[in-house]
Every structure is written in C-alpha cells, then in structure tokens.
C-alpha cells in the first residue's frame, strides 16, 4: 500500500488516473540540463499551462508539493480522511477578518485545488475586465473580454462543462459541451425563490460529467465533490489537462516542494531549488513559471529574495503579496417542511447571477452570484456549532433537521486593497522555509455587498416558506490577487502575458494575477488565462522574443 509520502511519478511513469493500480509512461528530464519551462504548481493555472506548453512543443517539468492521486482508489467518502487534499501547512492569519485557511480555499495535490473544488465554471461579466473604465471602481485588466471569450470556450470544451442551453446573462456564448445536470431539491428551492422574486436563475455550468467521457464515469450524484470525486466525473486538472500534458511529453514531479527560484548575475531566472524525499535538488530551466496560488506564489517570490532583489523577485512595484482578494461566501440557511437532502448531487446545482449583471438597486460596487448548497455532515455540524453557537441539545435538534435544511450562498466580489496581503513571518515550516502571514480585512464596500446579499437571500428563502432562517455572515472562499497583471510596471507585477516586468523569463500563471475578482468562482478564468499565456509564449518563441539564460 502506498503511504502517500513517497513520490509516485518516478522511473519514467506516472499514475494512470483512470485505472486502479495502473501507470502511464512519463518522459523525464535531467536536472542539470535546462528545460524550457519549470512550472511550480500543477493546479488550475500551472497544470493547464504545463499541458498547453508541452503541446506547443516545449520541454516542461511541473512541480507540485502534493501527492499524485488515483481518485478511483485513493479517495474515500469520508470528510475527515479526505482532509489529506487540503493545504494545511502552518500559516499565520491576522487582520480584522482573519481568514480560515485550508479546506475551503487551498489544495495540495497534483491538480491543485481543483481536485477538491466545487466545479462551478463561470465566465466573468465582460465589463469586469474594465471595471475602472466601465463600472467606475477598482482597476482595469490588460485583457480584452472578446479574446477571453474565445479562451473560455476552449476551457469549457477541455472540461466538457455541462451547462444550460441558454445562459440568461451576458453576451451569447457557445453551447456548453455537455447538457445540464438534473436539479436536486435544494436547487429547486433556489429556482422557486428566484421565480417568486422575479429574477432569472439557471442550472449551474459545472465541470462534472452529465454523460460518460472516455474512461471517466458520469456523475453519480453522491455529493462528495468538495472532498474529492472518486468517480472521475469531476473534470479537475488532475484528470483533464495533466493526462494530456504527460502525453505531450511533460514531466510531473509530485511531492516536490519548490523553496526558491535561482537567478544569474544578469537577473534572469536559471531554475528552481526543490525538496523531494527529504533532499534539496536543483532543476535548471530557461523559464520559470510560478503557479502556487495566491498565498504560495508571493511566498515563493518573497522567499527567493537575493542580494540583487532584496525585496523578493519581481517586486520592483512593491506589489508582490499585496491586494489579496478573497471572495465573500456568506449564506442564509433555513428549514423546509418537505425533505430536501441537499447533500445529494454536486453542491451548487442552481445559480442566479442576477446581482452580477444588474447595476441598479445596489449600494455597493461589484457583484455577487448565489447558489444552492449541499454541505456534508461534519461541515454542517461545525457550522452550527461555530457560526451559530449551538451546542448540546440545541445542536442535536438542529442536526435532526439536516435532511430538511436549505441554504443559499454567495460568491461575492471584494475590492483590492493593499493592506490585505501576504508577507513572510519568521517562523519556518517542515521544509525550513519561512511561512506566510496572511492579513485580511473587509472594506466598507465589501460589507455593504454582503449585507445586500444577506437581505436578498433571506427574502428568497421566505418566499418559499422556509422557516428558522438564519445568516451565516463570516465565511470566505477563493484567494486571488497578490501578483496582479497590468499595463504599467509601477502598478502591477506581470503584464497581460503573465510575464514579470522585472525578470523576463519569470512568469506567474495562477489566481494571483487577477487585478479584480468579480462575483464568480475563478478557476475557469485562471485556466483561460493559462491557455492564452501558452499561445502568447508560443507566438513570442516563434518571433525569438523569449530570453535565454
């Protein structure tokens, strides 16, 4: 039995995610010969980019601190056991609203957080790419929505996203590759509430299969999604982009924690130092891509500080680690007389993006969507105890209602603020690396958005005769920002191509590059950016614009 602490992707083979106990061939690269790209992180950003770059003919080694799972045999329907998917290394949190890190926002696995994400696959509202000029708040992205629209389509195809035939909001989009899933009772409650309040709703576009795809089984609606899907219905990076990456000749090094990025006297990156099986190694590379997600990415850049770059790599703007944005994740819960069993099926089967697209009737900037919910029992019990303060008989009584409870939960936009940041503490982790300190506080605009959403969702639950309604007012999800892209080197860390202004062969390709977050879950946008970046790199290479170290 594999003990989950020794690497699996070794000796020219990697785990076959589609067959228990099986392997697929994997190309391997020597450490002392520079590969075209060393990529740190194999999640939504890094995994997608590794695939696309390998398919474009580059030599690629992608590192991940987490293990290489075979979902069919490694995942149990057990919340406690599956915490093995989360990034639970020590981190310090502070600020007015200290974040709860781990389960709900970061993963440590080959495939990144997408291995336990909730599969909601949404496009940005086009105006958000220019929220300063079009909507009057925060900053513009250096990207054009029409170009992103094309890359969104590419990702939706790659993930066989199942979605509605007509999306009620925004400009036309191509048909989703797979049809929507059947709605569970919790989703129908959202739908009834929305219809009662006169707003649109739709089955949620989800990256889980509503029909078979190759060796991946269709969804079985057991609702274990956020603890890892054991059927491979979930179209995580692990089962979509990475098998393609291997086939195209990329190497994936699992259980390989990158500790720092090395550079030469000219200030160009030369490779990465990483720890695997208790030893430090060095992989030479012509380009380095950082894709460790919005906390580990700035941490690695800061931890790589040198005499030449004393404030960390790519940090001449001073913005590495700054503008951390979560998304607000508040909910309104209630009890229905009829049985709901909200945990059946993917947790968020119905959605309304009404408040992402409506601009009137708001006392805040930005937007939010809200979705139906299906919390698993331990999470639900913990929520009742910690958020609602129930204990003893009261807690037991509330848990008896588990099959009747319903909830609506937002993914809300928060504004970028420099005071929300990732810095280094002096404490060190098991690898001997300085651990991150994550500081976070909502601003007044964020709070007004949350208050608006709680009021509205309460009305929606009242409209369907839910009772015992209460607000869960302090949850957050998704981490973004901390290495924003922009047009100006003094106010951003990377350009539109995810290339660092300071070090032209250093790239950042993950949720860190978001200048704003919008009111939708981020992974589709991260993967679309990765696809675009790969195409841009290919074009630059053809024109001889990639630097050689």
């Amino acid at each position, binding site marked *: 039995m594999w003990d989950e602490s020794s690497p699996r992707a070794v000796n020219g083979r990697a785990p076959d995610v589609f067959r228990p106990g099986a392997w697929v061939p994997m190309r391997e690269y020597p450490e002392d010969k520079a590969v075209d790209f060393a990529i740190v992180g194999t999640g939504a950003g890094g995994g997608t980019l590794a695939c696309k770059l390998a398919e474009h003919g580059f030599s690629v080694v992608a590192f991940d601190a987490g293990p290489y799972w075979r979902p069919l045999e490694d995942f149990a329907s057990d919340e406690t056991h599956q915490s093995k998917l989360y990034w639970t290394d020590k981190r310090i949190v502070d600020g007015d609203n200290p974040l709860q890190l781990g389960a709900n926002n970061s993963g440590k696995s080959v495939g990144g957080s997408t291995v336990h994400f909730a599969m909601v696959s949404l496009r940005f509202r086009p105006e958000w790419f220019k929220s300063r000029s079009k909507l009057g708040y925060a900053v513009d992205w250096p990207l054009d929505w029409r170009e992103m629209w094309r890359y969104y389509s590419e990702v939706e195809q790659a993930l066989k996203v199942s979605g*509605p*035939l007509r999306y009620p909001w925004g400009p036309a989009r191509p048909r989703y590759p797979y*049809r929507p899933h*059947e*709605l569970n009772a919790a989703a129908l409650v959202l739908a009834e509430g929305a219809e009662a309040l006169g707003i649109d709703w739709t089955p949620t576009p989800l990256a889980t299969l509503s029909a078979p795809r190759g060796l991946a089984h269709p969804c079985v609606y057991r609702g274990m999604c956020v603890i890892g899907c054991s059927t491979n219905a979930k179209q995580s990076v692990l089962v979509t982009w990475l098998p393609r990456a291997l086939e195209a000749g990329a190497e994936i090094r699992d259980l390989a924690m990158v500790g720092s990025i090395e550079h030469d006297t000219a200030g160009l990156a030369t490779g990465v130092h990483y720890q695997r099986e208790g030893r430090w190694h060095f992989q030479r590379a012509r380009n380095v891509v950082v894709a460790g997600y919005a906390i580990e990415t700035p941490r690695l850049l800061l931890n790589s500080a040198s005499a030449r770059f004393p404030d960390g790599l790519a940090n001449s703007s001073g913005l590495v680690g700054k503008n951390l944005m979560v998304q607000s994740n508040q909910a309104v819960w209630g009890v229905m007389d009829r049985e709901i069993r909200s945990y059946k099926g993917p947790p968020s089967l119905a959605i309304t993006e009404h408040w992402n697209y409506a601009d009137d009737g708001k006392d805040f900037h930005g937007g939010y969507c809200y979705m139906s919910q299906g919390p698993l029992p331990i999470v639900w019990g913990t929520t009742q105890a910690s958020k609602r303060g129930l204990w003893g008989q009261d807690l037991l009584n509330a848990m008896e209602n588990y099959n009747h409870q319903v909830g609506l939960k937002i993914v809300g936009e928060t504004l970028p603020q420099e005071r929300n940041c990732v810095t280094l503490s002096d404490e060190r982790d098991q690898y001997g690396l300085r651990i991150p300190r994550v500081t976070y506080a909502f601003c007044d605009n964020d709070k007004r958005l949350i208050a608006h959403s709680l009021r509205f969702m309460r009305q929606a639950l009242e409209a369907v005769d839910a009772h015992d309604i209460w607000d869960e007012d302090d949850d957050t999800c998704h981490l973004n920002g901390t290495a924003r892209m922009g047009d100006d080197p003094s106010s951003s860390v990377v350009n539109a191509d995810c290339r660092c202004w300071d070090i032209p062969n250093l790239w950042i390709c993950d949720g860190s590059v978001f200048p704003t977050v919008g009111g939708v879950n981020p992974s589709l946008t991260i993967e679309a950016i990765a696809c675009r970046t790969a195409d841009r790199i290919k074009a630059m290479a053809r024109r001889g614009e990639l630097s050689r170290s």
Partner: protein
Amino acid sequence: MRRLPAVKSRRVALASLQEIAGSLSEKYAPGKAVRTRVPEPGGNVGRKLNFSSALLSFSVLADSGLEHYRGSFQNRLMYLPLAVSAATLAASLFGIVDGRAKSHVVRDGLYGLAALTGATGLGFHGYNIVKRPGHLSWINLFYAAPVGAPVALLLAGVLGRVAERVRDDEASTLLGYPAGEVLGAVTSAGLAGTVAEAGLLHFRGAFQNPGMFLPVVVPPAAAGLLAMTLFRSGNVVRRAAKLGLGLTALLGFVGVGFHAYGVSRNMGGWRNWSQNILNGPPLPAPPSFTGLALAGLAALSLVERNKKAGFHD
C-alpha cells in the same frame, strides 16, 4: 386450439423476424425479378400487430417499472401504467397465439384501456413538466417525467385496436380509410414521436457516442418512406420503406446492446448492476422501435393486400 400456444407464438415472432430479413434481402438481391408476394390474410397481419403491441407494452412495463421504482412510487397512480401495460402485454400475447381471424372483446377492451391510460399519462407527465420551476424548459424536458413513455402505451393500445379491426377480415377499412394507410400513418407518427424522445435523451447525453445518432437517422428515414407510400404508389418507395423499417426493427435490438454498454460505463459498471440499470441508459427503451417498425411492415402488407383486392392503385 390444437397446436401448442408457445409454438404458435414463436412462429409469429419468427415470421416477424423473417419479415425483417426478407425486407433486407429483397433489397440486396439485385437482378432478381421483383417478387410479388401473396398478400397475407388479415388474421396474420393482426397477429403481427399484436406482436408490435406486445413489444411496445413490454417496453412500457419494463421502463415504467424501473422509472417509477426509481421515483419510489410516490404517487399511487404510478402503479397504473405497470398494471395496464402488463395487461396489454398479456392481451397481445394472447393475440399472437390466437389464430382465429376474429377480434376478441377482452383484447379490444384492454387495448382501449391502454390507449386511455397512455393519453392520461401524457397529461400527467405534461403537467409534471410545466408545474416545476423553469416550466416548459430544456431542463424539465430532460429530467421531469418523460413525455415519450405514456405515448408508447397509447401506441400499444392504438396498434392493438387496429390489430383487432384487421382481424375481422372484412374490415379492411378503418374510420372509412383503407386500413393499411391508416396504420401506416399511425406508425409513421409513432416513429416520429419515438425518434423525438430518443433524440431528446441522446441530446441530453450530448451524443457522446457516435452510435447515439443512429436512432435519429434510421427511424426518421423509415418513417418518412413509410409516409411516402401513403401518397406514392410504386414498388421502389415501398421496398425502400421496407428496408428502412427492417433496419429500424434491427436497431431496436442493437440499441439494447448499446444501452447495455452504456450501463457498463457508469461507476462500477455491470458489477454494480442494481444501481446502474436504474441509472441508464434505459435497457427497455430501444425495443419500441422494433415494435413500431413491425407495425409499419404490417401496414405495408395491408397496403399490398388492399392493392390486390383492388382498393388501391
């Protein structure tokens, strides 16, 4: 009744299969002089139609059995199609073994009941669709109670009624029109409906396997050709229609195989049969195509018979 019923029914079933084979071989025997077959007596055609009804009601019995079991028989009425389709199946089997060229009042009554239940079921299923949030929308057409299922029961009933009418040899007309043509029209419409149902569900499955296109290509062609025979006389169209119907009947069998493969692609495959048979694709659905195709072939026999008798051309 001297002959053993089982042997007789097997003969009708065999005859139906031979009909399929015949319609195929006729097409693939180039140069052969056009075979003019001796038209069949009404009793035989009637029994063939009983066979069609049997297939359709079997489909309905198995399908609504699975689906309503899956729906936990939440509403008492969900038992009704099971009872009625079982009775229709029994009546049809009785019809198959009953060599007398005469209708039977019990069969006739049961077929009437089947048609009525089918029509009522259609109403219930339609209501189930429009009352849900989203109302008449794709998501409800995909997942609310299927419209096609009660229609299959309706068709089993209607075909059964026609079977009874054509058994009475002299009744070569239905509602004042030649029986073959009425049956042809009913069958074409039935095929069109069944194609719509298969098309909808295969669209729901994103046509992820190219085989899923077969039932939206072959049966519509057959239904179209069958409908054409109503307006155009001539052997070419009729033979093409026979070929199409033969292939459609075959597809009903092949479809079960495809669906069995589909079941195997669910998590756990056939080892987890107790869940995956419910999960679909539905094994009993494709045979409705065979049932309807056989009815179409029966309609063509009637047309041929009527032609001989001077009704037509």
